[in-house]
């Protein structure tokens, strides 16, 4: 669930960014789009509690984010947000399995290997657990990064430009994987993109009806 009203953010010396109101129930699919510089990153950062909302209200997964501060933000983010960065950012020093274990370490949870293997299995990459990121193909690496994002069963998955630099077939597979994974766990899925292919891919999918488009200007 993500709700926002009158949300805005202003960087010093710049015109404030204003965001459209949003009312998305738990499990919704949100397509965040707009030209570069429109505030996609700021919106993602606020939803992930990386920076406090400038003004207005923002409520994510039942938590009023204007109230959260410091270490509580980090703990809340660990529980609630799964993030799939565009560049994936798997740690080159660690094996796939250890990369996932990092999510548990970051959240301050004990390492749970069984849980890691189950998650890798769900994304079809369990046999890659012992590999290093440099030994993975692009598609495999994205699956691993998605596994890391959903490992702690977040209520919200944020995917940043998941199809950038992918060809059409790979982009289709990537979007399908995201939709399926989010549906399976009941998580709210936010896809931030300026790739027009994603909108058409979604409109042809079963989720076409419940997709909320958040267009930033």
């Amino acid at each position, binding site marked *: 669930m993500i709700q926002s009203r009158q949300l805005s953010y202003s960087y010093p010396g710049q015109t404030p960014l204003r965001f459209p109101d949003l009312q998305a129930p738990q499990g919704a699919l949100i397509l965040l789009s707009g030209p570069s510089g429109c505030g996609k990153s700021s919106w993602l950062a606020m939803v992930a509690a990386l920076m406090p909302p400038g003004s207005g209200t923002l409520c994510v997964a039942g938590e009023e984010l204007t109230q959260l501060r410091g270490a509580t933000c*980090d703990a809340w983010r660990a529980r609630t947000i799964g*993030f799939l*960065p565009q560049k994936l950012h798997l740690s080159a*020093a*660690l094996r796939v399995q*250890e990369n996932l274990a*990092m999510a548990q*370490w*970051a*959240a301050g949870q004990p390492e749970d290997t069984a849980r890691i293997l189950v998650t890798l299995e769900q994304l079809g990459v369990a046999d890659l657990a012992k590999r290093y990121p440099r030994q993975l193909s692009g598609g495999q690496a994205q699956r691993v990064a998605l596994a890391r994002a959903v490992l702690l069963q977040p209520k919200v998955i944020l995917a940043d430009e998941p199809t950038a630099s992918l060809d059409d077939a790979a982009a289709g597979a990537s979007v399908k994987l995201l939709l399926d994974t989010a549906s399976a766990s009941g998580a709210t899925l936010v896809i931030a993109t300026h790739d027009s292919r994603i909108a058409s891919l979604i409109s042809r999918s079963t989720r076409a009806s419940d997709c909320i488009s958040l267009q930033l200007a």
Partner: protein
Amino acid sequence: MKTIALSWRYLWSHPLSATLNVLLLSLGLASITFLLLVSAQLSAAFEKDLAGIDAVVGAKGSPMQLILCGVFQIDTPTGNIPLKAVADLRKHPLVQSVIPISLGDNLRGFRIVGTSTDYLRHYHATLADGREWDAPMQVVLGSAVARKLGLQIGMTFAGSHGLGGGGHVHGDSLYTVVGILSPGGTVLDRLILTDTASVWKVHEDYTAVNAEDRQALEATREVTLALVQYRTPLAAMSFPRYINTSTAMQAAAPALEISRLLSMLGIGVDVLRAFAFVLLLSAGLGVFIALWNAVRERRADIAVFRMLGAPPSRIVALLLGEALWLGIVSSVLGVLAAQGLTLLIAKMLQLDNSLLIAGPAWPPELLWIPLLSCGVAVGAAALPSLGAYRVSVLELLQSR
């Protein structure tokens, strides 16, 4: 995954730079440890040998030479003093006890010392085997001598003239081993001890041409020097002056001469110590640069950890953990290298014969080394850690 295990993994994710940093830091620590070990061993050895000797009386000459010769048995004597003078010393009201020392011969570099059994008492020496001498030409071996020369009770040998190897062998006068001392960590460990009369006997046998000549020699018997213990500490004021002005001998105070010696050595040690600290400082800078680069290279990783919900404190713990590992590994290697170097130098300079520096030692000051090491590493990590604290998460995740 535990933070400690993780920082270990990260440390070795760049094996070359990690190895170089460990080497650099170990080198700095090894030099400091080496200095520490040598000075600790030297002062411990000096202290043990000096204990309870208030003055050394011998022929006129360098007082330091007299001390080095008489107490530590490392320098040559300044000359001899008449036996009668030693007897007079005993009668002096300020003197509690006198131990005569006669030098002149050696066995393969180990000094044969003519003395009284008081010398054994003075250092609380105990016998590992056999008994003390009760007649001339019987010897008791220090533990190091017995070990190195492989001599046992009942064996006989002839001494050679002089204090180093290679002098004339007194082939007609054979010494018999009657006892072997237990190791005491004192000067006795490297001496061959016998009765004062043995030394006279060997040389009179060697030089006397007939009975008359022998009698003449006996009348002028001498010892090399005497170790003196005062009856009262006040004697330190008047006794040396009395000896130096009204006799043909000199009295030297070991405490004074040794502090003079140590202050002379001290300048050298200070210079070396300064070098070691410069080395350590450059090692610290090396660690700083390595961690700084590690943070820069790993900014994206750090941003991901923050995105995954790690509070900044956990990230800083990761970096400090890495620095601590570096410090621990380096201090272990540094201390081992220093112990090895000490051993090597002791062997090369044959100092282990003199027991001034012997084998690995673990003085309590050594505990400073890991503290110093971790201090340097953590100090070097402080600024990069601050950088990790400030990393701007989303910007990094989106940067190309």
